[in-house]
């Protein structure tokens, strides 16, 4: 079983991740790694988890979701809601129950959908359940009606766009334009302290490793072979007796749950969650991470996310006006010259090649 999950490349990846999991907190503790880098690295790992989740549906089942940021953001909001409740009476207005923005809006009591979020396990459950449920309803409708290809991509974009607009509304009860922020602590640990940040980083690294393992387990199983079959010849798979919509739905929901978890880890490390995470452009960014790293490889997606995020951090620091040029060029060059992504450069013969086929919906 383990040998099935850990092909050579995945094994190398796991080794590096394990080294980082231990190394980053140690180096930081020894003063060799500046404090600000720890949450930054943790944020990148959250992106990496999101990228792996997208690769699972895009790289293996051929579902190009342009709305995966929505699942990520929903998970982030679920955790953000808990963190808001954790602030308690320490807010600017000192209300023991209501978050500041609700006091500001003159709300008298907590809306029903905020109930329960004072409990951490409940918030964590919701961070998985809400994205999972959205993915289930959306996928059930879309896959059953055989909406495929670019049509599917476009309506996933419409989905995240609708949420984007919704979360901007103050009446929605999620802090409107400003989102949720000013968090103080999580489970009693001060979010500003170095050790909490190191802890969150370790959690992110562990979640990334677990995600890769779970996804490997899925794609190397017979179900994974069915997914690739769906990607390459959906109609043929149906004629073999497989319920294509069931497989797509399973992998889509799984991916959304993973994305939600990534979002839940993202919020405390970044210190804010706001509607911009729902912006269609954010979701397209996830796609480019996967494309650059190499789709259908899982660890390539993680690699791509970290590479692009690191480049963004660096370039927006030294020459912000160049960043969009560079990003745009990456989109163009990767699709034209690197269809297998960066990982494809390192001659990976044992990879299932991405079929050159018409993706015009069959």
């Amino acid at each position, binding site marked *: 079983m383990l040998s099935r999950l850990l092909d050579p490349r995945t094994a190398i990846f796991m080794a590096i991740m394990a080294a980082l999991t231990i190394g980053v907190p140690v180096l930081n503790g020894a003063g060799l790694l500046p404090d600000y880098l720890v949450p930054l690295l943790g944020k990148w790992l959250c992106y990496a988890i999101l990228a792996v989740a997208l690769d699972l549906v895009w790289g293996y089942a051929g579902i*190009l979701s342009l709305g995966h940021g929505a699942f990520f953001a929903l998970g982030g909001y679920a955790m953000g809601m808990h963190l808001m409740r954790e602030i308690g009476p320490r807010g600017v207005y000192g209300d023991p129950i209501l978050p500041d923005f609700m006091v500001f809006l003159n709300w008298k009591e907590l809306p029903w959908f905020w109930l329960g979020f004072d409990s951490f396990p409940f918030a964590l459950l919701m961070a998985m359940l809400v994205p999972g449920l959205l993915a289930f309803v*959306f996928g059930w*409708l*879309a896959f*059953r*009606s*055989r*909406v*495929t*290809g*670019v*049509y599917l*991509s*476009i*309506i996933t*974009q*419409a*989905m995240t*766009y*609708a949420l984007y*607009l*919704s979360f*901007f*509304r103050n009446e929605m009860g999620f802090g409107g334009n400003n989102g949720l922020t000013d968090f103080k602590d999580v489970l009693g640990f001060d979010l500003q302290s170095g050790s909490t940040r190191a802890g969150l980083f370790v959690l992110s690294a562990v979640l990334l490793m677990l995600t890769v393992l779970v996804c490997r387990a899925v794609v190397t199983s017979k179900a994974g072979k069915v997914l690739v079959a769906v990607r390459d010849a959906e109609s043929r798979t149906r004629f073999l007796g497989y319920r294509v919509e069931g497989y797509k739905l399973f992998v889509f929901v799984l991916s959304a749950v993973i994305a939600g978890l990534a979002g839940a880890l993202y919020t405390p490390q970044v210190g804010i969650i706001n509607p911009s995470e729902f912006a*269609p*452009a954010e979701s*397209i960014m996830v*796609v*480019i991470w996967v*494309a650059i790293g190499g789709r259908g490889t899982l660890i390539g997606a993680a690699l791509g996310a970290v590479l692009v995020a690191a480049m963004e951090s660096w370039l927006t620091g030294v020459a912000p*006006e160049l960043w*969009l*040029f560079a*990003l*745009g*060029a*990456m*989109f*163009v060059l*990767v*699709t*034209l010259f690197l*269809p297998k992504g960066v990982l494809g450069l390192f001659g990976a013969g044992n990879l299932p090649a991405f079929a*050159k*086929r*018409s*993706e*015009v919906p*069959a």
Partner: protein
Amino acid sequence: MRALLCSFFMILALASASTAETLDRLREISAGFVTKDYGQVQATAEALAATGDARVATALSALRGGDLRFRKSDKQVFRVEKVGRDYALFDPFTGEAMGQAGSRETSKIKVNNAIRNAIDGLLGGLTLRADDPAIRLDAAEALFKSRDPGALAALGSAIEAETDGSVRDAMREARASILLASAQNEPQALIEAVETIRARGGQDALGLLAQIGADYPEPVQEAAAQARRGIEQSLMLWGYGQSLWQGISLGSVLLLAAIGLAITFGVMGVINMAHGELVMLGAYTTFAVQEVIRTSAPHLFDVSLLIAAPLAFLVAGAVGVAIERGIVRYLYGRALETLLATWGVSLILQQAVRTIFGPNNREVGNPSWMSGAFELGEMTITYNRLWILVFALTVFVLLLLILKRTPLGLQMRAVTQNRAMAADMGVRTAWVDAMTFGLGAGIAGLAGVALSQIDNVSPNLGQSYIVDSFMVVVFGGAGNLFGALAGAFTLGIANKFLEPLAGAMLAKIAVLVFIILFIQKRPRGLFAIRGRAVEN
């Protein structure tokens, strides 16, 4: 005292209303100004106005402005203009110069605010007899708002004399408005006035009727309530009309933005995410053209859009051809890859424009023929929106003609249906691909010219339309221009009808959710081409 004077002068005025007023008579009345009693001054002004003589207007304006004085020695009234320490004297009615006088020799005819207000109404009454019907109409409208009871008599005689039907209606409405201001008037006259106001309709009529309170006779109150219901109903219908117009207008904008996409996505199966940025390029082309015109040929400003349109078509079209030749052609048959690559292009174009023109909104002006608005019943229609509708439909028809009637259109359809066979028959498919893409891009540029008239021209312009225009194409059904037409107007109108119910943002969200659900039912859109050929 005042009432007495008032009625006295009124009788005086009415008695002579039909005959030409002699100047002497005006002077005779104006002798009433030689007093310190505000009541008498006002009564005198009213009496003057009641003569209906146009020459009275100058005198009343002067009185209002504090420029009417009388000479202490002979009590003669003059209009004055200050010359150094002295006053130049003029006849208040004819304007004839009457010499000068020191400031001590004359005394000012004092007015208070009540008199000033009264004069405003009176001046309105006076212009009721002006030669220009537009001025008479304005006067009637002014009285409708000021509701000055003093103008009733003038209004009555003006209605008698009026020859223009619509002006007479306005005058009757003004009279009704004045009558309704007082609960003391004859109930029958009040009820008739209510009817007149009801026939006028509109928001101000509604406001006027709302002031009829419990102090009015019962039947008048009833009539007013009934009239209000009637007006509200017709206002609601006009409200629907306005929503419909706004929806059609939004639809025309969506159509412009989506129509080029319908070609690249529908006809070629290519998702062009940079489409919005091509629209933006069109808008910036308009900006650049107007800049050049402003600095070197300002007299051409009114035709700036006519110059910008072909240029925008060429600029966006050229960029489109470059995108097709440089990127898209290597990705045919891989729609998802095309989507990503063109998204990259959109980022580059955005940043390029931001670098060249700066990140802020750029000012693009409306030519005079696109400025302003006109009223249609209770609806307001702005000229820029109207022209954009005309423009969108024109572009649509032109595009249909290109597709159906030109060799390029024929070749485009041939390549769409069977690329290999078209190539065998000598169609240069690569050239057709580039031209088709260029055509779609060029139309995006035209959309930019139109959008520059109603939206902020900024590097983000394209982003705000891309999701919407995709929705139009997906909803209408790819590969069908009429689908784009139906999709654009359906979504535009649905949006604007939902807005009053739910607010702009919720309306948009509702439309998005509707499309997501709609796609489940008709995965290929409203005007899908069905059959075996499409499924495989």
